[in-house]
C-alpha cells in the first residue's frame, strides 16, 4: 500500500507541471501584466511613467524569457510563496484563506445532504423496481440530473428572494431569502453565536439547494444501478435460499456491495467542489473560491488565476488517488499493487 501511494505520488509531479504549464501558456496569450491589470483596476485613469512600467515588469520578471518566468512561478507555488494579487496587493494566501472555507462549507454541507438522501432513495427505488413509484422516482431524478444549476439558482432568486412573488413579512424586507452573500453585512458581528449560525444557515439555504440536487440525482442513480446489479448476483440468491429475511438480504448483503461505487465517487467529487462553486457563488454573490477565480480571470490577475488552477488541479489528482484508495479499502477484491497507475 505504502509503495503504491509513493509511486502514485511521484506520478503526480509531471502532471502537476503539465497543468501549471498549460495554464501558464494560456495566460501568456493574454499578455496581461500587473501594469495593465492595475490600469484596468483601481488605478485606472492614472498615467504610469515608462520607468515605472519597466520597474514593475522587472520586479515581476516579465522581461525574462517565458521558461524562466514559468520556473519562477513553479518555485513559488511549491514553496507556497504565492505573492500578492495585482488587483490590490493583498497576499494571495490571505485571499484564498478567506475564500476557501466558504466554498468548503457550501460544498461539504451539500455533499452530505446529497449522500444522506441519495442512498435511501436508491435502495427504495431498486427494491420496488418496475413499480409505479420507482418509475416516477427514476424519471424525477433523471430530470433533476438534466436541470441546469444556473437556471435553478436564478429561478430560486427570482421567485424566493426578489420579493415580487413571495414575501415573508416577519423579515421586514421583500422576499424570503437574501439576495447575496453568505451572511448579513449589517450587524453580523454583534450577533450571538446562535444568531450568527442562524443567519449563515438562512443565507446558504438556496445555494445549498442549488449545489446539492445535481449530486443527489446522479448519486441515487448510481445507488439504484448498484443495488440492481448486486441483487441479480448469485450470492443474493444464496442468501435468500438460506432463508434470510428480505431486510437482511438488502441491508446486509446487497447494500454493502452497492455502496462501493458511491464511496469511490467521493474522491472524484473533490475537484468539482471548486468548479461547481463558480456558478453558484456567482448567482448568489458569495465570495468563495469560484467567485474569486472568476474575478481574477476577468481582470486578468494572473498569479491568482494560476494559483487557483494549480490548487484545483492538485485537488483533482488527490481526488483520483483517493477514489482508488477508497476502492481498495471498501472492496477487498482489489489489490493496489496489481493496479496499473496509468
Amino acid at each position: 500500500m505504502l509503495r503504491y501511494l509513493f509511486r502514485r505520488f511521484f506520478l503526480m509531479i509531471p502532471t502537476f507541471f503539465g497543468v501549471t504549464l498549460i495554464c501558464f501558456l494560456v495566460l501568456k496569450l493574454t499578455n496581461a501584466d500587473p501594469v495593465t491589470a492595475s490600469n484596468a483596476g483601481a488605478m485606472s485613469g492614472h498615467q504610469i511613467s515608462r520607468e515605472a512600467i519597466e520597474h514593475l515588469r522587472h520586479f515581476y520578471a516579465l522581461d525574462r524569457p517565458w521558461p524562466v518566468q514559468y520556473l519562477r512561478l513553479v518555485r513559488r507555488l511549491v514553496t507556497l510563496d504565492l505573492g500578492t494579487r495585482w488587483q490590490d496587493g493583498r497576499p494571495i494566501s490571505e485571499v484564498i484563506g478567506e475564500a476557501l472555507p466558504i466554498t468548503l462549507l457550501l460544498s461539504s454541507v451539500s455533499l452530505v445532504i446529497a449522500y444522506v438522501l441519495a442512498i435511501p432513495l436508491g435502495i427504495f427505488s431498486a427494491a420496488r423496481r418496475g413499480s409505479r413509484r420507482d418509475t416516477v422516482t427514476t424519471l424525477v431524478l433523471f430530470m433533476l440530473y438534466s436541470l441546469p444549476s444556473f437556471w435553478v439558482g436564478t429561478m430560486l432568486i427570482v421567485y424566493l428572494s426578489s420579493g415580487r412573488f413571495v414575501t415573508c413579512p416577519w423579515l421586514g424586507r421583500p422576499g424570503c431569502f437574501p439576495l447575496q452573500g453568505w451572511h448579513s453585512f449589517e450587524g453580523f458581528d454583534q450577533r450571538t453565536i446562535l444568531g450568527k449560525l442562524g443567519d449563515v444557515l438562512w443565507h446558504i439555504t438556496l445555494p445549498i439547494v442549488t449545489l446539492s440536487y445535481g449530486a443527489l440525482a446522479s448519486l441515487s442513480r448510481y445507488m439504484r444501478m448498484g443495488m440492481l446489479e448486486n441483487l441479480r448476483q448469485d450470492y443474493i440468491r444464496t442468501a435468500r435460499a438460506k432463508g434470510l429475511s428480505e431486510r437482511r438480504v438488502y441491508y446486509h448483503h446487497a447494500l454493502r456491495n452497492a455502496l462501493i461505487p458511491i464511496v469511490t465517487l467521493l474522491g472524484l467529487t473533490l475537484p468539482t467542489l471548486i468548479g461547481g462553486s463558480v456558478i453558484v457563488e456567482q448567482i448568489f454573490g458569495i465570495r468563495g473560491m469560484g467567485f474569486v477565480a472568476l474575478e481574477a480571470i476577468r481582470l486578468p490577475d494572473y498569479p491568482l488565476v494560476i494559483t487557483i488552477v494549480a490548487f484545483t488541479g492538485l485537488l483533482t489528482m488527490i481526488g483520483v488517488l483517493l477514489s482508488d484508495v477508497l476502492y481498495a479499502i471498501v472492496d477487498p477484491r482489489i489489490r493496489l499493487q496489481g493496479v496499473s497507475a496509468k
Partner: protein
Amino acid sequence: MTAKTLVTDAERSSASKLFHQVFKQPIQRVALVVLLVMVTVALIADMLASSQPLLLFFHHHWYVLPNLIHPSGLRIYDNDLLMKHLGVDDWALLPLVPWGYNGHDLTHVLSAPDAVHWLGTDSSGRDVLARLLHGSRVSLIVGVLSVTVLVTIGTTLGTLAGYFGGALDVLLMRILEIVHSIPTILLLVTLLSVLAPEGYSAVIAMTVVIGLVWWTDVARLIRGEILRVKELDFVHAARAQGASTWRIIFGHVLPNASSPVLVSATFALASAILVEGALSFLGFGIPDDMASWGGLLNEVRSNIEAWWLAVFPGAAIFVTVTAFNLVGEGLRDALDPRTR
C-alpha cells in the same frame, strides 16, 4: 411502405435495428420528437421570427422573402414601422413572431409577456421569443460541433494509445491525465476571456475549446475497447491475411469499439449545450448581439424581477438537455449488454 411489415428483424440493417431498440420506450420517442422540433426551429428560425415580412407588396413593388434578403429599399423598416406605412393596396405576410432577434422595441423595454411580445422583452426591448427561437441555433451548433471535435481528438489519441501501446501509450495517457486534471470551467472561462471572440467566431471558439478540453473520456473509452478488441480472433485473422495496420484499425477495430463512444458522445452533446448555457450565463460565452439561451438568462442577474427572462430560456435549455440525455440513455440500454 407495405413491405415494411414484411421485413423481419434479421433483415433490417443494424442501424435501423438500433434505432428501433433505442426508441422503443414512449419517453424516448417524445425526446426524439422534441429534438426534431428543435432542429427544425433552428433551421427555419428566420422564417419563424424576423424583423421583416415573408412576403410584401409595398409601393408597387413585390418583395419576396425580405426577411432573408433584407433588400436595401426596406433597410429602414421593421415590421412595426412597415405596418404604419402600408398603403391601401399594399399588403404583407408577417412571420409568426414579427420581431427580429436583434430588433429593439423601445416602447416595450423589459415588459412582461403580453399580446405584443408573447414571452416578454429584455432590458433593451428585444423580443424574448424571437431570441429563444434563434438561440436554438447557437445551442445546437455548439453541441454538435464540439462533440465532433472531441470525438475526433478522443478517437485519434485513444486509438493511437490503445493500438500501438508502449511509450506512445504512456505519453498519451500522461497528457490525458494532465488535461483531465485541469479545472474545465476555469480553463474555458480563461480561454474565452482571452480570445474574446465576436459573432460566429465566438461559437467556433467555444466549440473548439470545449472539444480540446473534453476529449479525455472518449479517448479513455476507445483505448480500453481497442485493448480488448485487438486481441480478439477476428483481428488476428485479419492480420494473418496480411491486412495493413490502418485497415485493421479502421475496418475491424474501430467499428467494434464505436458503441460506447456513441453513448458517450450523446451525453457529451447534452453537457456541451449545458456548458454553453453556463458560460453565456456567466457572460463569457456568446456575445450579446447574438441570441443565446444562456445570454438571456444572464440578463436576469441585473433584473431579478423579470421572471420571463428566467423561466423560458432556462426551460429551453432544460428540455433540450433532457431530450439528448434520454436518447443517450436509450442508446446505452440498447448497446450495453449488461442492462439488457
